[in-house]
């Protein structure tokens, strides 16, 4: 097994699936000659040629709409949106079209597209290269939303996403790209969409997170372990559909639940997970459900002190974990 970083795992999955299935192709801004501005599609043009690795004009509504059309006519497009912030011109295509195609045709058509997009902050990206926009899409039945937090999952979940018969938004935390390294099998394997992964077994509090924050939670959980507090850490991995059973079981296990995400708090993923827990396993709880999230401001500022203030980190998370454990 080779050690790969997160972005290499993505490239690996794309190449593997393009070799395996002629219908798969990638499209997006700068994905060809440049191999993507983050280099997720590096080498694909050389191997598969310009017919299957398309540099598109700079227009996201066109990218996603074209992908949908190709999918309706039998192809399996993987569209790259350069930054998730720039998915917004394509939201009409995603929500009005992709999400509703199966439903509105009573199953006659379906829309097997994947839209990959880097998201998240802490990279001096300012307002428009730092956003987490997952909550915009997790409110939309018909879509699937996946946010892997390890190289292994990045490859396995991307393969599942491409093989999924429905539209999948595949959000890659851009800080994870080169920060995370791990074992990634060279061969074909999948990680199921819609299933959490327990990253750490524990008995005092249960913490749910995803993406980059999952790693900060892991580090914070180690700090707490040395203080004698045992954290049960759950990587949500898929935000839509949520893995209800596993989430409920994990919350019941300790009776104390904390949801941590970088995205801002109001109407975020944490609200849904908290509502689910309180609806279903309220009587197993020993403390109010807690959330630790980004502040409710429009987006992350550029200035370093402001960016630091905005971003969660190991210390902020450890403090919140202690607060819950002490309750």
């Amino acid at each position, binding site marked *: 097994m080779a050690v790969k970083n997160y972005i290499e795992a993505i490239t690996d999955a794309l190449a593997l699936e393009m070799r395996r299935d002629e219908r798969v192709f990638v499209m997006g801004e*700068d994905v060809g000659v440049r191999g993507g*501005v983050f280099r997720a599609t590096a080498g694909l043009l050389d191997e598969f040629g310009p017919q299957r690795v398309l540099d598109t*004009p700079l227009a996201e509504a066109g990218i996603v709409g074209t992908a949908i059309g190709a999918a309706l006519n039998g192809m399996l497009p993987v569209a790259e949106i350069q930054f998730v912030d720039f998915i917004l011109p394509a939201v009409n295509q995603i929500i009005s079209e992709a999400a509703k195609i199966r439903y509105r045709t009573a199953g006659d058509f379906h829309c097997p597209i994947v839209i990959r997009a880097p998201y998240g902050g802490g990279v001096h990206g300012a307002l428009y290269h730092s956003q987490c926009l997952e909550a915009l899409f997790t409110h939309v039945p018909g879509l699937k939303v996946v946010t892997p937090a390890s190289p292994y999952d990045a490859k396995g979940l991307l393969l599942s996403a491409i093989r999924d018969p429905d539209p999948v938004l595949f959000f890659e935390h851009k800080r994870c790209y080169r920060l995370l390294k791990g074992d990634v099998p060279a061969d074909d394997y999948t990680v199921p969409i819609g299933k959490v992964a327990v990253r750490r077994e524990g008995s005092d509090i249960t913490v749910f997170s995803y993406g980059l924050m999952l790693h900060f939670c892991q580090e914070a959980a180690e700090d707490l372990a040395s203080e004698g507090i045992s954290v049960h850490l759950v990587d949500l991995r898929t935000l839509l559909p949520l893995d209800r059973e596993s989430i409920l079981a994990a919350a019941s296990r300790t009776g104390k639940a904390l949801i941590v995400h970088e995205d801002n708090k109001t109407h975020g993923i944490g609200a849904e997970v908290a509502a689910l827990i309180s609806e279903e396993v309220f009587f197993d709880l020993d403390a109010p459900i807690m959330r630790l999230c980004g502040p409710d*401001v429009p987006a992350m*500022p*550029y*200035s370093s*002190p*402001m960016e630091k203030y905005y971003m969660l980190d190991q210390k902020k998370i450890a403090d919140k974990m202690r607060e819950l454990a002490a309750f």
Partner: protein
Amino acid sequence: MTPEKYRELGLTGEQVRDMYRLMVLARELDKRTWLLNRAGKIPFLVSCQGHEGAQVGAAAALEVGTDLLCPYYRDIAMVLAFGMTPTELMLSNFARAADPNSGGRQMPGHFGSRRLGILTGSSAVGTQITHAVGAALAARMRGETTVVMTCFGEGSGNQGEFHEAANFAGVHKLPVIFFCQNNRYAISVPLEKQVGGGSIAARGQGYGMPGVRVDGNDVLAVYETVRDAVLRARQGEGPTLVEAMTYRLVPHSSDDDDSTYRSREEVEAAKRDDPLLRFGRYLRNVGVMTEADQEALLQKTLAIVDAAVSEAEAAPSPAPESTLEHVYAATREEH
């Protein structure tokens, strides 16, 4: 450029010297930001090198103080012409609290200043083009003679917003200059993969306005084209689409490596047509400036850049908690 060209255009020696001064200032500020970036002092930059001629030529045709600008991230020379100071630009590069564009919130290149008539913009390319149309509509509703200039790259001209804006302005004959700075690349994607038909200007006809392609490295040619467009707009004859052909002499941004998608020979060839060198040569040829004048100007400019950097670097960052401010109006303010 014929020797008499600037006088034929009704420009004075003083005016063309000032245009050259702005180009040199933009170039030297830009070069310094690269050094600051490579020294780890500023995290990011986008550059205007190669676009100075197009920007200064266009800005010179506008009436600063009356006309409005919806710029894009390369418009360093353009906003200098609109009155932004070198120190203000450096405050933005260093993300300081006193950055007039955003108080350190936006990346460099995201210009906006009510005082200067520069409408704020985001990073999402093309969004500003519709704002320009709305601003022109507002001006006309109030019976003002304002002209609105909006700038964008040829790649960004493929966003739906460009087409929606151009059509709106064409239908309503609004006083907008659509100023496309065509540098033949959108990051790595070359013009031929970006623009079907190869010309942004040719689209003008479809939207009910003249579309003019001009040599963007010829400052005076750009000035002439935009001056005519401004005249049309002010007389109520509607919008014009101008496509200034130029070249980005450096990578797309501090995060880009342009050697992955264009040859060094191509870049070197483009440098020989650098608008700054061309205009400098022209001004010497027509006797408006001597080599010594230009050297003195360069030295003066470098001192200005030094001062701007020192001042900006020493200025305070925004307070961390100010992250929470300006989401909504703090009071029931007048609007």
